[in-house]
């Protein structure tokens, strides 16, 4: 195998922070906004994405020699759809409450652009090892982004984290709960502020090391 593209380790590290799918590539905004009301939903979604991305990346990487350029997106989508169906049925079978809460967002992983993007950028060009490392790295980056948003929203909006009471939730606390943060507007506000913070940190790092 000729050395083409980044090594598996580079792929893995790139996905977590330098090319974070949410904060750096702005992909997968739909689940990012929709299922980050609490940590449980966000982590279930991250797990489903990890499974689908890993499966799709490996499969596409194995059949990359057979791909025809004009049909490749179709093949990607069908491959992803197969894994999404497995994930959807699994969640419905073993986590019925969570399946109801996530609603259409599990089937919608099919059109999650993170996965099509990784199939296109990495899996259709590199071997299975690099593709798997890429899938895990990108999924971890996605999980990290979802966790950061869900933490802010769940703590401010419900006073809990992973459904666990944070201790300061006396009856009077109801007066301090920012219900808005658990509602859709809270997702936009949190994402915007965290995205601004991520950009600010990136530009601060660039200022310190101009050549990097």
């Amino acid at each position, binding site marked *: 195998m000729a050395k083409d593209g980044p090594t598996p380790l580079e792929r893995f590290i790139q996905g977590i922070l330098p090319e974070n799918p949410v904060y750096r590539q702005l992909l997968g905004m739909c689940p990012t906004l929709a299922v980050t009301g609490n940590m449980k939903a966000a982590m279930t979604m991250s797990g489903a994405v990890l499974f689908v991305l890993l499966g799709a990346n490996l499969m596409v990487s194995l059949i990359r020699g057979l791909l025809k350029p004009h049909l490749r997106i179709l093949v990607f989508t069908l491959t992803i759809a197969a894994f999404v169906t497995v994930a959807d049925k699994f969640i419905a079978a073993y986590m019925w409450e969570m399946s109801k809460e996530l609603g259409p967002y599990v089937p919608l992983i099919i059109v999650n652009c993170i996965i099509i993007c990784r199939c296109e950028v990495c899996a259709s060009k590199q071997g299975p090892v690099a593709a798997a490392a890429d899938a895990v790295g990108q999924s971890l980056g996605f999980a990290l982004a979802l966790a950061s948003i869900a933490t802010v929203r769940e703590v401010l909006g419900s006073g809990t984290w992973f459904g666990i009471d944070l201790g300061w939730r006396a009856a009077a606390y*109801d007066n301090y709960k*920012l219900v*808005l943060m658990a509602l859709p507007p809270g997702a936009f506000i949190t994402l915007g502020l965290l995205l601004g913070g991520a950009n600010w940190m990136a530009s601060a790092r660039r200022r310190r090391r101009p050549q990097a």
Partner: protein
Amino acid sequence: MPVAPGPHIGTGRTTRRVMIDVLLGLVPVFAAACWVFGWYALMQVGICVASCLAAEALFTAMRRRPVSLGDFSAVVTGVILGLSMPWRCPVHVDVVASFVAIGVGKVIFGGLGHNIFNPAMVGRAFVTIAFPALLGAGGYLYTGSGTPPTDVVTAATPMTVAKHLAAGKAGQVAGLWPLFLGNVNGSLGETSALACLVGGLYLCIRRTAAWQIPLGAVLAVAVIAGVGNLLHPQAQWTVLHHLLGGALLYGAFFIATDPVTSPLTPRGKFIFGAGMGALVMVIRTYSGYPEGVQFSVLLMNATVPLLNRWTVPRPVGGPVPAPKAQA
């Protein structure tokens, strides 16, 4: 302020002068609030102004911009926000509203003159949704034991009563005279129609506020409520109740007339005001909220760029310029 085609002539009107004018216009409203709610009015407005100034100082420092407290725009935001609060609103709600108003409503867009939504209403809408228990109908009622600070706070707000009546429940409609003078429960600044009219007319005469906006809003409400009145002649909540009750006059004169977030042209201003009035009536009649001035103003703020393109004025003697093609 209307912006006409050139040539232009400079005047001494500075942002600071305009903002002081708005504060002068708010004096009767504040006085009425103090008369109705006593020290609570001073407390709410004081907390909101102090938090708005703190937020402005903090966020402009974060952006490394020169301190802009001297132009009084944050003070105006604070006073308008404070006067839109219920009398017994807890301190943390005021502080959250002020920081959201200045931070998310203004500084994040680049500061005064760049914001697309009215900052005070961004803050007010945020806490309305974030703390439904504290800013809903219950947030206006006196619940403690002992003597209430003033008599009005023991009764539901007139707008809540109107909502109950519309739902077929019993309720005592506020008289027109108390609604006019302001001797009813409600948000601090909205209760007195008289004070809003006095302060608002001062702003219109000083040309600090464009008269087209309140005129459009009042006309729209009068027409829509008038039609409703004709259809239901036996209704207890009449056109005059719609005009005098709630935050319509306060919003039309002091909130919607913010020069940054209202259209540039006179025709655009009138349409802006009329749209706001119509939305107020829609929200009052069909939504779960008893009053809808804050959401109407925010929705109409979003249409301002469209209104500006729609109402491009004709230069003297020239043809109507075609709006610039969208890339």
